[in-house]
């Protein structure tokens, strides 16, 4: 009997002990998970505050946060594989774990402003160009990880962006560059992110052509120049809708300036 009692007690203690240990382990892992989510959400808040400071000016700022892992998707970023944040602005970034991120806001325009885009620059990487291209706050080095070339197109195992006139060659595909910001976008963003953000900018441009067309129709001054502007806007918009991004806005700019010279309301 005594032996049985002792054995029973032992079993009871072991079972109870294991249950308590399991409970604590469960709690600890859940708590660690929660804290990591909180940390990721905090980093996301810091990114927002930083961008709020940059707002709609062309400026840059460094993010003062220790190592964190960034995964870039179309329209959102995931921080430390824990917290996904939708970004309602156009951005260019690349996957990786970084100690040093710089946020740079730049205007994209084609006669009129299309948008302000955000470059999330990984400054642990080295960048190089065969002409004066990168601003001072970018880590430029001849022993580069990312190269932007205007005069040639080296063939090596590094990330190389070749710019040929108005065409950006990235990963074997060619993209029409309607603003320098897109070349920076190709340098700082990974391929999928670049394609996604590029398409968003194109969509924005189409919307803006629509808006300016409607604005132009809103003027009732009966000027001939307005109908020339409408024709040009429609032509340019249709070109882009049909996939031909090589659109020249210089004629539109000229007509817009003409409006100002004739003391009429400008379009943009």
């Amino acid at each position: 009997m005594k032996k049985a009692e002792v054995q029973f007690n032992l079993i009871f203690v072991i079972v109870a002990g294991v249950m308590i240990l399991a409970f604590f382990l469960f709690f600890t892992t859940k708590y660690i998970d929660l804290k990591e989510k909180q940390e990721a959400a905090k980093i996301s808040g810091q990114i927002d505050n930083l961008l709020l400071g940059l707002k709609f000016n062309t400026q840059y700022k460094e993010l003062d946060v220790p190592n964190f892992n960034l995964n870039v998707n179309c329209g959102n970023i995931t921080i430390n594989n824990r917290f996904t944040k939708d970004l309602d602005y156009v951005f260019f970034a690349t996957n990786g774990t970084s100690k040093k991120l710089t946020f740079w806001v730049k205007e994209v325009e084609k006669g009129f402003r299309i948008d302000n885009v955000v470059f999330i620059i990984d400054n642990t990487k080295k960048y190089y160009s065969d002409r004066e291209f990168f601003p001072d706050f970018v880590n430029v080095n001849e022993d580069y990880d990312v190269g932007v070339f205007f005069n040639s197109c080296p063939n090596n195992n590094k990330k190389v962006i070749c710019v040929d006139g108005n065409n950006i060659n990235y990963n074997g595909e060619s993209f029409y560059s309607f603003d320098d910001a897109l070349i920076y976008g190709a340098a700082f963003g990974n391929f999928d992110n670049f394609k996604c953000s590029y398409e968003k900018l194109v969509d924005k441009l189409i919307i803006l052509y629509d808006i300016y067309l409607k604005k132009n129709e809103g003027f009732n001054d009966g000027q001939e120049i307005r109908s020339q502007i409408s024709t040009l806007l429609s032509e340019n918009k249709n070109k882009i809708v049909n996939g031909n991004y090589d659109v020249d806005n210089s004629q539109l700019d000229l007509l817009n300036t003409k409006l100002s010279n004739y003391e009429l309301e400008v379009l943009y």
Partner: protein
Amino acid sequence: MNKKAQIGIQETILVIFVFFIVLMIGMIFFFQLNMKSIQNDIDQYNEFRFKQLIDIVPNMAELRYSKLGVEDVYCIDLLKARAFSEISSEYDFGKKEIKLISGDEIVLYSKIGRGEIRKVTSPVCVYDPRNGKFYLGELDIGWWA
């Protein structure tokens, strides 16, 4: 003697058992509190993003006034605003209603939600290109949280 010792051991086991129950209740409570705190942070963040729209909307390229490509005046272009209201279904600001009130009322964006609506308003400058004049208007943003 033996029985006394056994009772003693059982008492100890019971005390430890009760202690751990209390500890577990405390930990569950602490955990729930932390979750609530995080949810509060997320709610506060969403609230701020909603209020931030009074700054974001007037600065959008689709709405902002410019002259020969220069945006040196912080105003909404009335004709652009009317045009934007016709195509804003392509945008997603969430379940919100954004109105520009300047003489007329222009619904810039509308995606109606359910339940209580929260509102913020902000004064804005409105430019009417038809007469070249600047007016004071109001930006009215409603949110179904």
